[in-house]
């Protein structure tokens, strides 16, 4: 009876040890890192688009600034 118990315990221990000894292969998708030059390029284009649109308005403002403005 004791021998049976020991054998069962041994088998249980063996199974437990086998279950703990696992190997997991995790596949990680390559992380896409957008090139930094795309972000810089957008900023440059936005700056230029704003300058293209507002340049004559800003110039008009500067011209009006040279003549004294009467506050109401």
């Amino acid at each position, binding site marked *: 009876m004791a021998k049976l118990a020991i054998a069962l315990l041994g088998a249980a221990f063996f199974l437990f040890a086998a279950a703990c000894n696992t190997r997991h292969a995790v596949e990680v998708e390559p992380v896409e890192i957008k090139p930094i030059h795309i972000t810089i390029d*957008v*900023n440059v284009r*936005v*700056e230029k688009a704003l300058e293209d649109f507002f340049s004559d308005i800003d110039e008009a403002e500067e011209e*009006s600034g040279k003549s004294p*403005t009467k*506050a109401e």
Partner: protein
Amino acid sequence: MKNKIWRILLILCLLGISSTYSAAFAESLKERFKARLPIIKVLKQKHIVGENNKGFLEFITDKKEKKDVVDAENSDRSKVYSAIAKREGTTMEVVGIHRAAQIEKKADPGEWLQDARGRWYQKK
């Protein structure tokens, strides 16, 4: 074959009309901006409005003088930022931030501006 040629001509005409309309719309927007310049300049000199960090005018006192002019200016700025954002594949907020930086550079001393942290200060 004839139908195809007519279709191509029609598409070209429509493209021409839409680009003419866009150019005319942009010009009318510019005229409105220029027309409001003197009023906005006075509001800034009286420290009633300042330029916020998003590229828009904002009242900095409880005195909301010429609110209709300020609202019209912001509405038109919003249209411009939106159009540029769409064309350049970015957001209106990004365009507004860039414009705020440009405005800050050319602002007159004494004008109220808002920094990136949201703090209001007077340009020296």
